[in-house]
């Protein structure tokens, strides 16, 4: 007797939890199979530095392996790493976090985000976030049993989320405002005064603010404002950060959360039952990055900035209007003049010209009409990608 694999899969699908079934697979991964099967693709699709981790950081981790540091660490993370992190946050933002009770080392900022949501959300609680935003935000809220509430943002406002728009969505169910600036996918950076207005909303309605600042170090010609530094905000902010983007350490999976001791204790509880401790060698690498990584970061930021300017000008020259992204390593041009949906654009660009970009719709409804182009790739590739995109846009331009 043969079994139909399809009916098999249907049979088991019903065993998957409702909660998980309501989450769509990340739109970012949609072209993965197609991409993997193609030769000669220039990918502007992947949101990670094209630098390898600075050698001194790798070397520190290798040394620790040689010395046999291969065991679990404390649940909250190695004491030395928390000490260093505490010092770093003090030096950088003048924020004082107790390394013993107010910091938690996680498996990338992704885990920190998940823990923050699970530790604070009760069933039905609402979390307000900008649209478009990073693909994991609404999923993290849904998985925690909450409801994501989207606040539209647009190119006209440089994809900055307005405090008034946030406040208009506040209900008695609202628990948290979740923001991530510098932003993935738009590259937007929020000016301090606009964040202050959001802080006012949080205070007025007694809300938590989860602030994902993974791209904090990647800003160009402007300042990053750490949300927790705003008056009265340290206590109600869950500050999420990590090493992946600034130190080119994506594969090491080390992030952190900084918050008041109740929140950190709650997050640590989940962390200890699900993760135990973040990878030891990654933590050793993170210590080295904090101790002497600044020069490498500055060099990489300088380099990204040059490519950023080439990418943005190139996109505008092709006729894909693009606001100036001041942070992260993404440009988020409008593709409306092609008359295509962003998914159609991304798919046809990949098939016809072998350039991979991510459809804006993967990041929320307001991302429709845009594509995300990551410029953390070589200058030669950026220029070749732009040349191919130019050919593509000229062929399909409607307006």
């Amino acid at each position, binding site marked *: 007797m043969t079994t139909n694999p399809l009916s098999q899969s249907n049979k088991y699908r019903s065993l998957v939890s409702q909660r998980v079934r309501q989450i769509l697979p990340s739109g970012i991964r949609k072209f993965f199979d197609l991409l993997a099967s193609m030769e000669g693709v220039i990918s502007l699709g*992947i949101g*990670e530095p094209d630098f390898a981790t600075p050698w001194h950081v790798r070397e520190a981790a290798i040394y620790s392996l040689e010395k046999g540091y291969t065991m679990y660490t404390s649940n909250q993370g190695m004491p030395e790493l928390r000490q260093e992190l505490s010092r770093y946050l003090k030096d950088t933002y003048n924020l004082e976090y107790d390394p013993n009770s107010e910091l938690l080392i996680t498996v990338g900022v992704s885990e920190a985000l998940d823990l923050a949501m699970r530790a604070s959300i009760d069933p039905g609680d609402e979390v307000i976030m900008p649209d478009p935003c990073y693909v994991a935000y609404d999923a993290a809220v849904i998985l925690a049993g909450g409801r994501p509430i989207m606040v539209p943002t647009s190119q006209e406002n440089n994809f900055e989320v307005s405090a008034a728009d946030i406040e208009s969505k506040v209900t008695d169910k609202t628990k948290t405002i979740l923001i991530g600036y510098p932003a993935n996918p738009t590259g937007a950076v929020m000016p301090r005064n606009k964040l202050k207005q959001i802080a006012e909303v949080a205070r007025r309605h007694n809300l938590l603010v989860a602030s994902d600042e993974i791209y904090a170090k990647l800003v160009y010609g402007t300042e990053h404002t750490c949300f927790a530094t705003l008056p009265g905000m340290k206590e109600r902010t869950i500050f999420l950060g990590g090493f992946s983007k600034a130190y080119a350490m994506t594969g090491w999976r080390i992030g952190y959360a900084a918050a008041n001791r109740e929140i950190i204790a709650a997050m640590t509880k989940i962390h200890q039952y699900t993760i135990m401790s973040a990878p030891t060698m990654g933590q050793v690498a993170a210590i080295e990055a904090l101790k002497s990584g600044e020069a490498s970061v500055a060099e990489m930021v300088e380099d990204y900035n040059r490519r950023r300017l080439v990418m943005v000008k190139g996109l505008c020259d092709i006729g894909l209007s693009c606001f100036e992204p001041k942070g992260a390593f993404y440009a988020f041009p409008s593709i409306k003049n092609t008359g295509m949906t962003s998914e159609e654009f991304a798919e046809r660009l990949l098939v016809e010209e072998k350039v*991979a970009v991510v459809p804006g719709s993967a990041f929320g409804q307001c991302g429709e009409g845009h594509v995300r182009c990551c410029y953390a790739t070589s200058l030669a590739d950026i220029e070749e990608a732009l040349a191919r995109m130019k050919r593509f846009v000229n062929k399909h331009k409607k307006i």
Partner: protein
Amino acid sequence: MLKEILKILENDARITTKQIATMTGTPVDEVAKLIKKAEEERAILKYKTVINWDKVGDEQVWALIEVKITPQRDVGFDAIAERIYRFPQARTVYLVSGTYDLLVLVTDKTMHEVADFVAQKLAPIEGVQGTVTHFLLKRYKEDGEILEGGEGGKRQPVIL
């Protein structure tokens, strides 16, 4: 701005003025003017290419030569250094601290020619007390570039 332009050029001499203008957010004319000025003032000495000659099967012999010299009144090491760096075989000449005074990088077609140069030209110069010749056996890194199996190309074909 000049420093920024020079850093970009130092890393890639083939980059165009227009590209630099975009990368630095400076008008093309301004970039061209600054480069021209840097060339005139010899802040930019020349534009060259870093080549792995082994790849094209054209082996050159290189030697690092430590030169110990007696400094002279009024001119110190400079006069002897000049007598050495005037030879085209001396590709790089540095005054260094430590157990010897000049470090001279010499290249020629054969080991014999390099040895000859040292014995016939360099060592007999008045004021040169002695030389130690190190023939170069293998290049691992040249001007910041790793010659074999560098860093690139480790990224997985994923969209994240």
